């Protein structure tokens, strides 16, 4: 039960938790949190499992580094679009039911 | 030498605990900031002192001190900014 394996399990726990939140929460920002934490969980599994009972492996670490940078650009992109969407529609969630082009957001009374 | 280090580190941790206790117990925001910055800086200083003897070479020791210095400056400015923001908030509301 080396540290690597434990952290891989913690990663799995993070993924499960984040997946649960992704289904339940509809607030767009909270979903960005969920997506980030799920990413960190996957990175933990990648490094943890690769180094379990083996020498420290630079390849998954390099991949995770690339992953972190990609994750930050994804978060930045999501935040950008969200803020522009919020500026236009003052809505914080995307309603799933009507996916026609008409009214696809939860209209909030403008303050 | 070992015992001195352990003593210093325990003392540092004690101050950390006191600071956190202060954070939880005090009622208004200003005193809470006060508690945190003061206690933690002192705690960190003791911790660094405790670790200095086991530093591999002088260069690493200087780096430890630099870290302490940076934290000092940063927490000072941070607490000032938070207090400033809170004051503006209260003036804004009242």
């Amino acid at each position, binding site marked *: 039960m080396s540290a690597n394996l434990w952290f891989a399990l913690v990663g799995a726990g993070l*993924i499960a938790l984040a997946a649960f939140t*992704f289904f339940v929460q509809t607030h*767009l920002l909270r*979903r960005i949190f969920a*997506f980030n934490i*799920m*990413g960190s969980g*996957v*990175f933990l*599994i*990648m490094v943890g*499992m*690769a180094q*379990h009972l083996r020498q420290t492996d630079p*390849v*998954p670490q390099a*991949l995770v580094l*690339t*992953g972190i940078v*990609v994750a930050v*650009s*994804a978060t930045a*992109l*999501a935040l950008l*679009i*969200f803020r*522009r*969407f919020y500026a*236009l*529609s003052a809505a914080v969630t*995307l309603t*799933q039911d009507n*996916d*026609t*082009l008409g009214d*696809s*957001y939860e209209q909030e009374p403008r303050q | 030498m070992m015992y001195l280090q352990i003593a210093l580190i325990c003392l540092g941790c004690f101050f950390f605990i006191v600071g956190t206790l202060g954070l939880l117990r005090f009622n208004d925001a200003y005193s809470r900031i006060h508690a945190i910055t003061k206690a933690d800086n002192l705690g960190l200083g003791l911790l660094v002192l405790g670790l200095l003897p086991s530093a591999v070479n002088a260069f690493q020791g200087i780096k430890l001190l630099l870290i302490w210095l940076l934290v000092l400056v940063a927490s000072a400015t941070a607490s000032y900014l938070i207090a400033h923001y809170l004051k503006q908030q209260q003036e804004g509301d009242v």
Partner: protein
Amino acid sequence: MNLIPFLLVIPLAWALISLLLPRLPIGPIALLGMLVQSLATALLWRSVQLHGAERYAIGDWMAPLGITLVADGLTVTLLAITALIAMVCAFYALFYLRSHRHEARYFWPLFWFLLASLNGIWLAGDLFNLYVGLELVTFAAVGMVILSANRQTLAAGLRYLYMALLGSIGYLLGVALLYSAYGTLDMRQLAELIEPNWTTHVAMLSISLGLLVKTAIFPFHFWLPPAHGGALAPVSALLSALVVKSSFYILARLWLDVGADVLPVITAQGFGLIGACAIFYGGFKALQQDEIKMLVAYSTVAQLGYLMLVFPLAAGTAPEHSMLAWQGGMLHVLAHALAKSAMFLSVGTLVLAVGSKKIDALAGISTRIPLSLFAFGLAGVSLMGLPPSGGFNAKWLMLQSAIGSGQWHWVVVLSLGSLLTATYIFKVFRVSFDQQAIDSGKGLVKRAPWGMELSALFLAGLAIALGFAAALPVELLSLPEVESSLMEASQ
């Protein structure tokens, strides 16, 4: 001087040019870039046709350590289709963007990044490299969807981005598990090492779920219609024809080429089942739409269902039937790419000319904008799988494979599916022949620029020509690289 890297360098270089020098005349630059790109693709096509598949180690580091690019028959065909459709969409966009000033500024850099990442995915032979390629495709695609920054497209872009990110997380999780289990990221080495155990099954399941989300197959399809329906016409053409296929290509490569003997029959039949649901669900929803672009977007959801039928037909059946299914599936990728991009481009012209996205606003256009409607019709013929078209040949091959391997339920799905497609295609035609609307002269119709009508017609013509000249791509599709894995897989 091998050609493979140039297919990546050219689009990336042109992306930089169009990003850094916006004042240069965009049109000629873009077309020049596309010509060079198509020339390189054609040369690569020729060399692969003559000497068979090529493997290219980047940085001269051998397989497990470095990244290898693989150019076999299927890759080259997909590269050719991408270059072709991208060129026509670029030509179309030159005219289309004249009336969309705001979007034109950042369209071209995103267009080139999209093209570069698509080429990267077709060529990639390394799992993590595919992940970065997928991310690049998604970001460029989301960027292009939200170019016209209004409420609908932003909401659609957000929903697209969130689902795509979830999908790539699933894919990355699978790659992480596979790497920890087999120690290598190279697909060919993985194909030799892979054997069914718990980790592999969970990894392949998570990769499949991730890629299904990105290919918008039935249960995860709801992000596609607003995104493809709301975007600019050339953008939705590129997205529907190529971007959605890139994740399907990876799924097909992983299941049928790399993990052929790990694919349990129930999973393959499961894929077929959700494919069938996609066909019927997409068809019914397309029938109910009153906006033309949403109708075409839902038709994409339905047509993607056909692609999923490749798995049950190719896995666990006799070698010649699985080869037929593989050829049929990949030919459907080509035919649908051509037909759908032609349809989106012609719809773009019609919407621009008529001024509204509603279907009943298109009443009586058969007399005023006949060329675009004719292109829409030809593309419809290929989508419906009526004989002289590429779509028909793909359906024919899949029917042969289904009948040969005795899976009658897929035969029924295939035939009912194309009938359903016919219903919503002819719904549009019924409106366009409506004489009352012509007599009552509903609103004047702006003359659409010739470039737009011709590009749509060219692609539609190609979709029909694929019906006659299907032998060339199909023979190239089933090069030894693919054949060998399918053959020993199904022994």
